């Protein structure tokens, strides 16, 4: 399978007032296109640092990181911003929707960041945002503000927002961490559906339940201690979530 993410000997060292803390210690990681990867590990294990690097928000102190063949570790802030706008879809634990914007505007927002040939006019942006909201079953909530939605609905909006720019992969940072069990099941079904349609999903989670049918990677003390590459098995396609 073709590599989407390839990290070799990734180190991240923070200088906290003269004390050096190694969040990652030579971690190697490979994620193939089309995979659903769950990253697990205790607090302080380096999960968030790894997610920040995969999301092009941070550079490794040492080591090389490639995303879709591009060497991220040498990119400038401007180049990283471009990669984030085109290649990555983010889903956060606390949803991080923009409160002043309607659901439709929130989903449309990443499309404003596209430039060059990928740039879309307003009506195309709107159309694509509405398509994504249909995918997550929220077409009837398009004109609502995020404050009027439930947690599960907000996360579905966040998923639509992550999908709207047709990213290479979705980075989900504990996407079900703030949801009840029913909403968790819906969101996981949705993420699997997205994955089955070809989008790679990399998810950080603490909840073993959500790692079913995913390739689980376990991190401890900044290194990869377990990689269940073979876990991804044939599964029944999840049932669609309720509208």
């Amino acid at each position, binding site marked *: 399978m073709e590599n989407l993410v390839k990290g070799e000997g990734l180190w991240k060292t923070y200088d906290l007032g003269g004390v050096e803390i190694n969040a990652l210690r030579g971690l190697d990681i490979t994620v193939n296109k089309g995979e659903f990867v769950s990253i697990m590990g205790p607090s302080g294990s380096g999960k968030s640092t790894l997610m920040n690097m995969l999301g092009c928000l941070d550079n490794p102190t040492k080591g090389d990181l490639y995303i879709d063949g591009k060497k991220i570790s040498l990119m400038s802030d401007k180049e990283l911003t471009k990669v984030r706008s085109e290649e990555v879809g983010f889903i956060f634990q606390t949803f991080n929707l923009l409160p002043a914007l309607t659901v439709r505007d929130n989903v449309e*927002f990443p499309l404003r960041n596209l430039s060059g040939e990928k740039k879309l006019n307003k009506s195309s942006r709107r159309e694509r945002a509405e398509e994504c909201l249909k995918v997550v079953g929220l077409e009837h909530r398009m004109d609502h503000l995020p404050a009027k939605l439930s947690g599960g609905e907000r996360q579905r909006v966040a998923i639509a927002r992550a999908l709207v720019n047709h990213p290479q992969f979705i980075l989900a940072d504990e996407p079900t961490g703030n949801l009840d069990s029913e909403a968790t099941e819906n969101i996981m079904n949705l993420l699997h559906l997205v994955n089955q349609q070809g989008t790679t999903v990399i998810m950080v989670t603490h909840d073993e339940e959500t790692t079913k049918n995913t390739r689980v990677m376990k991190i401890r003390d900044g290194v990869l201690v377990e990689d269940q590459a073979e876990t991804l098995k044939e599964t029944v396609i999840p049932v669609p979530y309720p509208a």
Partner: protein
Amino acid sequence: MLDIAFKDFKAKKSRAIMCIIGVMACVLLIGVVNIVMYEMQSSLKGDLGTVNGKMFFEQNGTGYPPAGSIMSENLGDEVLQRSEVDASGSTKALFAPLQGGTTNDGGTPTMVVGLTPGKEQVFLADHPVEGKNSLVGEADNAVIMGSEAAKTYNVKVGDTFTVNDDKFKVVGIIKKVGKGWPLTIDNSVIMALPYAQSVTNRPDLISTVIIKPSADYSLQTVENNLQDSYGKYDIYTEKDVQKTIDNNLKGVMVFMNMVIAMIFAVSMVLIMNVMMMSVKEKTKEIGTMRAIGTKKRSIMALIIYESLILSLIGGVIGILLIAPTYNVLGIMMGSTSLNFSIPTTVVIQVALIVLVIGTFSGLIPAYLANRISPIEALRYE
């Protein structure tokens, strides 16, 4: 990003409204102070502009109008007979407040201007007059009124009015000359010199000789010759106009500009404070935007747009309220007219100030927003 800035603005209505009210008050103050300065300048320049090309022979340190100057009529005749003076374009004149008369809206007393009949144009110049512009052949008590004086006494051409048992017959009314505050000419009641002397109880006295130099002499020569001959008297010329303007306006202008600068600073700090709060509150949102690929310059634009929206809304309301506020202030100070409109130059000045306030007060918050690390911002609660 402008539409997002508008939506952000709408989402934080109460804070935005408070900020807008603050900006509006500042703009209103800046506008009113600007108008006061404008009025002062135009009034003084307009008044002193009547000196243009002429000389006023008067007592030392009197300036214009020379109401405080007194000299004998004989001295005036002597000056008029000098070879340096073009007698046909010069005249004796008496300037004195009309005692017991009504003051105008601004509290300025009406000015009696006594002139030799037939020499009215020396004072009137080419200003258009409704009715007659000369007192020749008219009754002894005939007067040509300035527009403000006519308003003060509520008279029109042909009317007669009485002040302190003195009757005046209006034969002409000068169209308003001053663009801002009324000038001396607008507050004048021009009458024959003998009647002016009688009304003001100054028999055989005049205030000044308005001199047109002879063609054979330069202004400077006339001034020097007169000054040599009459050391106790002053020759007020165009040269003194600028000096008077400078003396009268310098201190006031410095003070007024300081007031404007302080109000300007207050409104800058006000918006900057609001925008700083906004950036602080938006830290997580900014982090999210950066994470999903928003460029730094778009974040900067968002903050500056918000700042501009606040200052422009406040500014426009403020500008619209300048004229009514100025009128209300006028009424509180005794004026009865409500017809003041803002001069275009003041509107442009204030609008520019608003733009500068909006842009610059957003710059520091925008810069700070730009420095927010998306990683830190996403952790921010």
